């Protein structure tokens, strides 16, 4: 075996016992060993793995590692979003304003956009202070007069229909029997019975379950703002309902036609006066049971 072959095998740890002896007999054996031993002096500096990993770990946090199969961070994010959504919901809900009026009570309400609402007795109005800035809309039942500041659409949702305006003065009566909208200024759009009726100033709309009719408005403002109630060609039953509501009494009728039409007002602070005026107009008579708050109207 030649010398180079021996060195090759020695370098690669492939010498057999005999070859090893032959290799050790080589004249430059000492140099060969010294070269291999000497190589160790050129060893690379130690790479401090633990220390370097700690360094790297703090750096890795700055890199988004979006490809995680499961990352608890997502759970926290979802929880955070849920909590924010819940908080927002409750915050918005807490901004709901409800205004109610009792019998004989009237209230003036100023909305966030400076529109003014006068609520008549036994009425209710609900709106959200927060959402108001996004959309002007409110819920209302009973009887109310609106003076709307110019701006975006203004919606009044009632059990009977929706009244939309831009900037105007109008009254909505959303009782049980009769739905009435009177426009005093500007333009009002009324959605009722799946129809849209446009009212300009001086026009009013009266709707029962069966029919819708347009009538003129003669007053510059609702009468009740000046303390009495005015009816124009409405059935007697509607008038009686209004009196019941205003004075918190129960009215029973006996042998009379409550579909007769009535035009006029009734006193708002004296039940007896209101009843007297009404029965006299129809030639009827009434009895009032003050303890049970029951009124019986019968033919004369």
């Amino acid at each position, binding site marked *: 075996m030649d010398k180079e072959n021996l060195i090759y095998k020695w370098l690669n740890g492939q010498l057999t016992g005999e070859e090893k002896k032959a290799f050790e007999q080589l004249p430059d054996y000492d*140099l060969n060993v010294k070269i291999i031993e*000497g*190589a160790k002096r050129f060893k*690379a500096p130690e790479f401090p793995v633990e220390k370097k*990993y700690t360094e790297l*770990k703090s*750096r*890795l946090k700055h890199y988004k590692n979006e490809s995680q199969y499961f990352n608890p961070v997502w759970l926290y994010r979802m929880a955070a979003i849920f909590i924010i959504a819940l908080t927002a919901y409750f915050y918005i809900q807490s901004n709901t304003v409800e205004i109610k009026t009792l019998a004989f009570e009237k209230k003036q309400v100023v909305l966030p956009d400076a529109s003014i609402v006068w609520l008549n007795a036994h009425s209710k109005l609900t709106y959200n202070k927060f959402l108001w800035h996004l959309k002007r809309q409110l819920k209302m039942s009973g009887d109310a007069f609106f003076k709307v500041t110019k701006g975006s659409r203004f919606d009044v949702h009632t059990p009977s229909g929706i009244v939309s305006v831009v900037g105007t003065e109008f009254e909505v009566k959303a009782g049980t029997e009769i739905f009435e909208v009177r426009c005093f200024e500007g333009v009002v759009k009324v959605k009722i019975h799946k129809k849209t009726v446009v009212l300009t100033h001086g026009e009013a709309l009266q709707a029962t379950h069966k029919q819708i009719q347009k009538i003129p408005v003669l007053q510059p403002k609702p009468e009740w703002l000046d303390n009495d109630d005015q009816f124009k060609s409405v059935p007697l039953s509607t008038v009686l309902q209004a009196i019941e509501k205003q004075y918190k009494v129960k009215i029973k009728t006996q042998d009379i036609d409550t579909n007769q039409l009535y035009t006029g007002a009734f006193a708002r602070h004296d039940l007896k006066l209101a009843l007297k005026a009404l029965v006299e107009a129809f030639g009827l008579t009434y009895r009032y049971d003050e303890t049970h708050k029951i009124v019986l109207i019968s033919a004369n």
Partner: protein
Amino acid sequence: MKNLCVERIFEAVYKKLSGDLYNFLYYKYGNHDEIADVVQESFVKLWQNCKKVLPEKARGFLFKVAKNQMLNKFKHDKVVLNYQQKLTDKVEHRNPEYLLEEAQFYQKYQQALGKLTDEQRVAFLLNKVEGKKHKEIAEMLNVTQKVVEYRIYSAFKIIKKEIQELK
């Protein structure tokens, strides 16, 4: 799920490969301060691509990224490897003649290492200094074991020739 995006697995890969990568770069490019930084950068890249790179492919990925970074960082010119100026504890070796001889030997050795090709130097030093098996080196460099053996032998021959010229 065995995935590099899981920190525990990434850490294990770091502890297994960072030293090898460092040594490989050191023996290939010589003594440069930037090598440790390049190792770190390469692992950052691995972390960023943790979804695309399978753990068993991490070594290949790291070595490739590291080589590209070295190319961008500086011109690969003369390779210089430092050596320890170790004094032996034997009294008779402290005589000036011996010390001079020693100094000359290692200077020559250093020059010889610089004259080797990158491939020869890396294979020789990983084997003789780091004690890496032929199989490991072959995997690291993506060559056969025979090639590794031949590179070690060629390196040795060149070093020996350089040193013998001294005498």
